[in-house]
C-alpha cells in the first residue's frame, strides 16, 4: 500500500512538471506576441528602448542622442513618431506615426533610427534606395 502511494506521488510529480513546462511555454509565446517596443539607435548604440504596450494616452519625450543632438518623440500604445529633430531634410518627421517593424524611422542626416519590434511580423523590411 505504501509502495503504491509512492508510485502515485511520483507519477503526480512528473505530470505536474510537464504541465508547468507547458504553461510556462504558453505564457512566453503569448507574451512575445503581445509585446511591442521601439528601440532608438544612434551610431551603433541603443539609446533607449520604449515599451509601447499599455501606454497611458500620448506621451512626449526628449531623447538626447548625444550631448549635442536632441530629438523630441511622441508615443502611444503600439506607435511612435518623431516630432522634432535638428536634421536638414526632416525625413524622420515626415515618416509620421509608425506602428510596425515594416516602417522604421530613419534619419540618415543625424545617423539615428527608431525600429519597432513586433514578434509576430517580419524579420526585416525592404525599404528604399538612397542616392549617395
Amino acid at each position, binding site marked *: 500500500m505504501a*509502495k503504491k502511494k*509512492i*508510485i502515485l506521488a*511520483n*507519477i503526480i*510529480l*512528473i505530470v505536474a*512538471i*510537464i504541465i508547468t*513546462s507547458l504553461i510556462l511555454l504558453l505564457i512566453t509565446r503569448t507574451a512575445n506576441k503581445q509585446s511591442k517596443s521601439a528601440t532608438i*539607435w544612434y*551610431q*551603433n548604440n541603443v539609446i533607449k528602448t520604449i515599451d509601447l504596450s499599455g501606454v497611458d494616452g500620448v506621451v512626449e519625450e526628449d531623447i538626447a542622442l548625444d550631448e549635442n543632438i536632441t530629438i523630441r518623440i511622441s508615443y502611444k500604445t503600439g506607435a511612435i513618431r518623431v516630432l522634432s529633430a535638428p536634421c536638414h*531634410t526632416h*525625413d524622420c518627421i515626415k515618416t509620421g506615426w509608425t506602428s*510596425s*517593424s*515594416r*516602417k*522604421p524611422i*530613419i534619419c*540618415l542626416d543625424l*545617423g539615428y*533610427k527608431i525600429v519597432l519590434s513586433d514578434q509576430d*511580423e*517580419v*524579420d*526585416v*523590411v*525592404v*525599404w*528604399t*534606395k*538612397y*542616392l*549617395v
Partner: protein
Amino acid sequence: MCRIIKTLLLILCCIICISCSSKDKVKTEQIYAFNTTIDISITSSKDNIDEAYQRIKELLYLYSDLCDRYAQKDMNNIYTINHTNEFVEVDSHLISLLQEALLLQTETNGYFNILIGEVSNIYKELIKTSDLSLLDGIEDKVNDINASSIEIEGNNVKRVGNATIDLGGIAKGYALKEVEKVLKECEITTYLINAGYSSILLGSKSGKDYKVGLRYTKDTVLNLQNMVVTTSSIEEQKVVIDGNVYHHLVNPKTGYCENKYSTIYLIGSDASQLDAYSTAFFNMDLEDIKRLCEAKNIKYIIYNNTNLLASNN
C-alpha cells in the same frame, strides 16, 4: 518501479537542460557605411565567427571608402578618380567593382551607367530646392556621359572625358556580394545583412526562411532564405513640380526621369547584379525587364503607385 520513475525524471531534466542551452554565438551590430546604416547579424557555433565578423566589417568599411565620391579617404578612391583625367592607382577591390559595373552597363544596354555623377548631382539639388532651372544644362551633361569612358590598366583607372563616376547604384550590392563570399568561406549559414534597407543579404534563419516585409506593399510577406532582396523606389526621394515628378533614378540616356514605375523589388542570388538592375530597370520597358529577369533567374515585383504592374514571384 521507483527506479524507473527516477530515471524518467533524470532524462526529463537532461532534456530541459539541453534545450535551454545554446552553443550558437550571435554577433549583431549596426555600422555606418555608404552614408547609411548597415545592420549585421550572424549566428554560428563555429570558432571563426569573430574572425568572420571582423572581416565583414572591414570589407564594408573598405568598399564604403573606395566608393566615396565626396571625400578623399586614406587611399585613392572614386573622389580621386573624379578629380583628374590621369591614371590613378587604386585598390584591386575597386578595380573589380569597376569592371563589374562596366559589364552590367552592357547587360542593361546602358540603362545602368556609372558615369552619371554630374546628372545625379543636379537631381539631388533639384529634389532639395525644387529649382527647375537646374535642368537647363542637362543635355550637355548627357553629352558628356556619351563622350566619356573609363580605362582600366592593371590596378590603374583613368576617367576619360568630363562625366564623373557615381557608384551609388552598385556599391552596396557589390560589397554585400563580397561579404557573402566571406560567410560562405567561413561556413556561416545563418545571417542577415541589411544595407540601408534597400539591399538585404539573407542566409537561412537556422535552416528556416526569413520573413521579409515590403515597405510599400501592405501585408505582403516574402519567405526567403539564401537570397538577396533589393529595391528601388522613388517614394522617399522625389519632388513634384507642376504635376511632374522628379526623382533620383534618372535615365542616363536622356537625363530625364521616366515615370513608368514607383517601386521595383528584385529577388535573386547576386547582390551586385540586383543593385545595378534595380537602378536600370526604372528606365527600361517592362518587356525588356521581364526578358532580362527571365534570363538571369531573377524574381521581380513592380509597382506604379499602388498598382501591381508585373510580378513573377
